[in-house]
């Protein structure tokens, strides 16, 4: 395609972009002319750049048609007023009259910021528990030590590695879930992860994440996130119907305390 022809196609793309930006009315452009330009040059497209230009022109044209559709819909709403008429009116009005008109239709948001005695007392408690910066940002006293070796059993004995493998832990969780709810059964999230200590609860919620990710179980939440449930998968797979979404669940200490109280 020659430079001149490409320029003409790019002119069409530019016009479409102007419509998108709102500087040209959607009905001010001649769709037939644009289509004719695209049709005329399509047989001459023979390299990637030409195809890209042609595709951009078609995309632009479809967006103009979409804008025309939106424009008609907008005109059918009560909000539609002739832009030309509106501009003329704005030109005629003085600044004070425009401001007066606006103030009549301006309903400002009422919002407050306030500290209560309760908030202050709570903050004071936080301040008391806060460790001074000197201690928090203390430079660690690092010492040079001779590097040594340890066996897997020694590392396990030191508590750096769990006694059983992670896959084994998940298998045992899966079996526990089946024992509690049966095959394909459901259980409320907190009833599943909740344990006697907060640390154990955190650990269970951590493993549950992998249980779901690896297809041992599914997690379901209602629209408002009020009801979260864990569902046992009798076969090791994730539900193909269920969309792949992350469901963030907060395992809060206060919530855990509430759960413990029942």
């Amino acid at each position, binding site marked *: 395609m020659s430079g001149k022809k490409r320029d003409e196609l790019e002119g069409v793309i530019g016009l479409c972009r102007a419509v998108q*930006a*709102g*500087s040209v009315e959607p009905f001010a452009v001649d769709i037939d002319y644009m289509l004719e330009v695209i049709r005329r040059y399509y047989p001459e497209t023979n390299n990637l750049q030409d195809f890209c230009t042609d595709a951009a022109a078609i995309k632009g044209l479809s967006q103009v048609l979409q804008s025309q559709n*939106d*424009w008609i*819909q*907008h005109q059918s*709403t*009560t*909000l539609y*007023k*002739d*832009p030309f*008429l*509106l*501009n003329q*009116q*704005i*030109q*005629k*009005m003085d*600044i*004070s*009259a*425009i*401001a*007066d*008109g*606006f*103030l*009549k*239709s*301006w*309903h*400002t*948001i*009422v*919002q*407050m*910021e*306030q500290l209560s005695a309760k908030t202050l007392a709570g903050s004071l408690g936080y301040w008391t528990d806060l460790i001074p910066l000197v201690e928090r940002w203390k430079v660690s006293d690092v010492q040079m030590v001779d590097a040594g070796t340890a066996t897997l059993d020694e590392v396990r004995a030191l508590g750096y590695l769990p006694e059983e493998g992670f896959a084994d832990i998940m298998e045992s969780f899966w079996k526990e879930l089946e024992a509690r709810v049966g095959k394909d059964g459901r259980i409320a999230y907190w009833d599943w992860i909740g344990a006697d200590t907060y640390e154990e609860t955190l650990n269970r919620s951590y493993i549950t994440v992998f249980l779901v990710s690896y297809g041992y179980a599914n997690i379901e939440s209602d*629209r*408002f996130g*009020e009801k979260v449930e864990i569902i046992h998968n009798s076969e090791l797979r994730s539900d193909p119907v269920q969309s792949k979404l992350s469901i963030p669940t907060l395992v809060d200490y206060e919530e855990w305390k509430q759960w413990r109280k029942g």
Partner: protein
Amino acid sequence: MAKRVRSEAGYARKIKDAVHLLFFQHHRLPGVRGWELRQELGPDWENVLEVLDKQLQPMDLQVTRVLDDPNIIDPDQAQLADARFYITMRSGIDQKAAKTIGWRVDDIAGLAVAIAYIISKQGKAPRTEVEKLLQEKLPGWRVKMSIDRYIQQGYLGEDEKGVLYMDWRSRAEVDQKQLVDLILSFGKRKEVEVAKPKLEEHTEEEED
């Protein structure tokens, strides 16, 4: 009887909770989503808001609902859950009051023109066009500064292509239909005002 008293007390508590939620800012932006209100106030949250709105009326305040799509007239439950709710002034404010909250008459007029122009352009217009329109009555340096201020305060938004649109605050605070109607009826109102005394004079003459 005791049941009714208990239910009234429960409602009063819910209205108090609604006041706390709506008056105090909980997020980066003001306003509370419908689903948050439902979560806090229960399934009859819409009735609670209706009662609160009535109670706010004597104080010239109201509960305002802003839907994501302003063209929806009769929203369904899902659309209501996504809508934002605010407490706003029920009636408009005068120029004197506007000055006390830090707005010059130029600023207000500039915002009015920008919003009206954007509405007429189907919700978006290039910044250069809005600037050109404002520059007809305001100095250029002031126009740029004002538009930046409108953007910063959430009245207008600007995308990467320099196109202005109405942001969350205009949608929450400005009655768009009323504004456009007021601007369009400006000349006509004046004509009616001028024509009225003439008509009265004419009638008096006829009676004489």
